[in-house]
């Protein structure tokens, strides 16, 4: 049976892992390569690296970091943050990334998803959606949660999958950093509406939150950062707990 995935996320800034709360108050959380190795040894199923200050000048530095990671770790990983062209994607996949995630650039030019899927295959194109619940709806935000769009998360997810996105990485801005649990309702809505895997992100605080997002939220994978970085939750302990609760995980 296909296992539910546990995915630590490493936000990268200037080659270091950082962690903020609600997309703000960034603080240092260590060397990404060391953390990546630690997570893969502890039983992480996959890793996500988001370059939160990605700019064109930094792209080469990021590619070098990606190669260092690819050499060291033996599980799949996704790289995202500021990716906006076929050239960016080519560079990062060639550097050793297994998948790339696109966010703002795909909102500005949805055809980018199609172009990337046609060229590289849907399996390596993850659409990242940052969403916030306001006025009774889940709205899509861009530029790392700074700018509100006119798109609804559910509609955008469906459109992106039609264009060729192979996975959805859904971050609830309301939940991110709160440690009060994932956004179950929107995750479930999207997971039931699209036939590609949905990775839930934002809000993990306890092991029960992971169980809830898999069972009630119908997520295929759950992503978290600080609870793993600061060892508030051990991956192995989490997976044992999930297994005891009849959730299929790789142990």
């Amino acid at each position, binding site marked *: 049976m*296909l*296992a539910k995935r546990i995915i630590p996320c490493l936000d990268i800034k200037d080659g270091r892992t950082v962690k903020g709360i609600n997309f703000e108050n960034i603080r240092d959380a260590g060397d990404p390569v060391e953390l990546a190795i630690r997570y893969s040894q502890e039983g992480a199923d996959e890793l996500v690296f988001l370059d939160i200050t990605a700019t064109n000048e930094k792209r080469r530095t990021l590619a070098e970091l990606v190669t260092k990671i*690819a050499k060291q770790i*033996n*599980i799949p990983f996704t790289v995202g943050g500021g990716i906006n062209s076929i050239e960016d994607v080519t560079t990062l996949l060639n550097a050793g990334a*297994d998948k790339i995630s696109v966010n703002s650039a795909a909102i500005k030019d949805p055809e980018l998803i199609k172009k990337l899927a046609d060229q590289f*295959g*849907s*399996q390596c194109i993850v659409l990242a959606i940052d969403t916030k619940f306001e006025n009774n709806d889940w709205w899509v935000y861009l530029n790392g949660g700074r700018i509100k769009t006119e798109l609804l998360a559910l509609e955008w997810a469906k459109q992106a999958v039609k264009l060729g996105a192979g996975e959805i990485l859904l971050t609830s801005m309301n939940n991110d950093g709160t440690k009060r649990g994932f956004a179950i309702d929107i995750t479930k809505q999207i997971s039931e509406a699209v036939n590609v*895997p949905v990775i839930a992100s934002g809000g993990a605080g306890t092991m029960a939150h992971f169980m809830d997002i898999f069972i009630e939220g119908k997520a295929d994978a759950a992503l978290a950062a600080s609870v793993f970085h600061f060892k508030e939750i051990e991956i192995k302990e989490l997976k044992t707990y999930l297994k005891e609760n009849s959730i299929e995980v790789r142990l």
Partner: protein
Amino acid sequence: MKIVILKYNAGNMRSVSFALERIGIEAIITDDADQIISADKVIFPGVGEASSAMNYLREKKMDNVIKQLKQPVLGICLGMQLMCRSSEEGNTTCLGIFDQKIKLFDKPQLKVPQIGWNSIFDLKSNLFKKIKEQEYQYFVHSYYAELGENTIAKTNYELDYSSALHKNNFYGVQFHPEKSSREGQTILENFIKL
């Protein structure tokens, strides 16, 4: 020992090469027929689309080179699928080393591609030495190989399918051992020792 990774237009050559480096092996990534034929072991990786990959192999005349290899050959993911008879992906005639047909996962309740860790069972090969029944491996694929006499491992995704094949000197795995943690590494080591 000379290990060659086939270079073509649908490869994850680099991931495979890094995985081999982690077990102390420097592989050669090449599309040169002489280099391929003279290798001790050949790895045929793959991430991509079947018809364009087959077209490329035919243009470069690599299709016949692969079919005639006598040393152990390991196809990974698309590499394994291209070693089968045909694929529904782009209605492609493949190399025909294994008799399997490659079909699309087309049940409505299934998420496609299958992405993630799934278990392998009914293991029947030295390729799986030291690997437990129901061990997890990492899969990313929308198409699958049917079961058949070449099946040496099965996986279930609403239906049982071949997650590994073996015939003579040819081996194929649907999963990515290069991305499957220690257990995947063991399978690569087993292949190198064949």
